[in-house]
């Protein structure tokens, strides 16, 4: 028996969310009285693999096959399922990010393992196996029971935190079968903004809505984000109008994020917007309308004009740093 965590890498590096995944899965393995195996696919140095030991990964299985250097969900799912069968894994855990969303359902079908996406905490009960997740875009929580012998879960970002538990890492190589027919998708172009804070990873997010009135008015938002080392985001009409790119749109139909701090400037707080931000640890709202619904979900609020308040905040944060 074992529990497997799939640790995705980004150009050979892990992120905090990877360590959160390992922390979570270690705790789950302890509760189930079984071993944790962390699976890494692709080119990752031993030094980087060893960092997983800080969070309790005593066994790391590394698959280093040049065919797998580019993430292909079909092939990755095949590798994960092969390892799960070899190690008689009862649960496979992944992060609920783009790749987790693409791979986990495939592993579920391969193993005929019931799957639940974006769970919020350790299982509510182990027998039966019941996990808790957000449903109706955050308006409620659902307890979902997985009845199959094997199980697949993905964990929501920032749901668990990091638990240090330093152990010695044993790295094993694993050479699964992957045939060329699995690679039918060809990447022909890739653009990445290296200098920007990535919204889905950001601890602090400065977000703005139609209250900014025009796309020319975004400088105060960007300046505040810069001082805070924050990512920028926006409401749906702002991206629909093309004032900002789609990648910034948060909410029910955009990204669902869970930063430590979310600053909403000139955003009314419509229910569909809140669906994407309600997992933030702390919400600050700035709005001219004291009755705006955003204040009912915010922790701190300022009634005022964004064009005046944002520069003041930027100045105050800058001063507090120096």
């Amino acid at each position, binding site marked *: 028996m074992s529990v497997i965590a799939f640790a995705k890498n980004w150009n050979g590096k892990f992120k905090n969310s990877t360590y959160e995944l390992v922390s979570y899965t270690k705790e789950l393995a302890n509760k189930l009285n079984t071993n944790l195996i962390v699976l890494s696919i692709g080119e990752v140095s031993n030094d980087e693999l060893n960092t997983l030991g800080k969070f309790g990964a005593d066994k790391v299985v590394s698959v280093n096959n040049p065919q797998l250097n580019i993430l292909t969900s079909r092939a990755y799912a095949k590798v994960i399922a092969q390892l799960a069968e070899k190690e008689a894994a009862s649960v496979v855990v992944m992060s609920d990010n783009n790749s987790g969303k693409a791979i986990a359902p495939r592993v579920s079908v391969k193993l005929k393992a019931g799957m639940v996406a974006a769970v919020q905490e350790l299982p509510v009960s182990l027998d039966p196996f019941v996990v808790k997740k957000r449903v109706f875009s955050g308006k409620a929580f659902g307890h979902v029971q997985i*009845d199959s012998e094997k199980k697949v879960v993905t964990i929501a970002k920032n749901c668990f935190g990091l638990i240090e538990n330093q152990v010695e890492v044993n790295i094993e190589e694993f050479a699964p079968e992957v045939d060329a027919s699995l690679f039918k998708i060809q990447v022909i172009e890739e653009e990445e903004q290296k200098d920007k804070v990535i919204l889905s990873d950001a601890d602090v997010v400065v977000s703005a809505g139609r209250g900014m009135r025009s796309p020319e008015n975004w400088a105060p938002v960007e300046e505040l984000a810069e001082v805070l080392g924050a990512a920028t985001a926006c409401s749906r009409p702002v991206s629909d109008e093309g004032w900002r790119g789609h990648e910034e749109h948060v909410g029910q139909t955009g990204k669902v994020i869970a930063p430590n701090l979310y600053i909403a400037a000139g955003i009314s707080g419509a229910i569909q917007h809140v669906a994407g931000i309600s997992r933030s640890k702390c919400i600050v709202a700035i709005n001219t309308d004291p009755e705006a619904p955003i204040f009912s979900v915010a922790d701190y609020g300022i009634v005022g004009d964004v064009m005046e308040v944002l520069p003041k905040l930027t100045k105050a944060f800058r001063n507090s740093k120096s």
Partner: protein
Amino acid sequence: MKILVCISNVPDTTTKVKFKEGDSLFDDSGVQWIINPWDELALTRALELKEDAGNSVNEICVIHVGGAGADATLRKALAIGADKAVRIDACPADAYHVAGQIAEFLKENPFDIVFSGIESSDYNGSSVGAMIAEFMDYPGISSVTAVNLDDDDIQLSRAIPGGKQVLKTETPFVAVVQKGIANEPRIPSMRGIMMARKKPLEVKAAAEMDVLTKSVKFELPAEKGACKMIESESAEQLVDLLKNEAKVL
């Protein structure tokens, strides 16, 4: 080329959710049902592709797994412009079950492209599309923000953290689509609504398929405490509260 668009029938996004039978079931009394927002965008893009003469797309079919309660939603999809609708008459028990039903249909009725939305706004399972791809052993592309067919050459864009990728693939494949795939969902016209009445809505018996998970209980989130209001002149006070009270900086 034929495109199949998977449709989930979900409560309107402004619905106040309630539960019944000891919080074990969603209470759907008085609920307005809509096409899941991403599925609606997927359908819109599929119709745009059909209208574009630069490719051979000639049929758009929508499919739903569920009871007769969803027929109005499927008629809406037909009114927007889908050529036909298929409903697999089964209670959509979990993602595995739904994807399995759609895969069984696909085995008998092949399509070149299958669109599914990134998630369903009710149970937020975000797995049906990728599961269909696996059941069918098709390539699948997730987080798709654009699909272009130039002379049936397939080019897709997908969002990656901090950027995008442009990909090429071959049919058949599954695209799991999100924001960006189409600009605005189409609204049915009067003529569309009339025509939809004559379009086929085929009801098919469910296939034998396992259900691996079930919802056992629901709960509402804890009430949020009151918002602390700060004077617009007191930016320093907010910084202090974020540091020392909320401890998020």
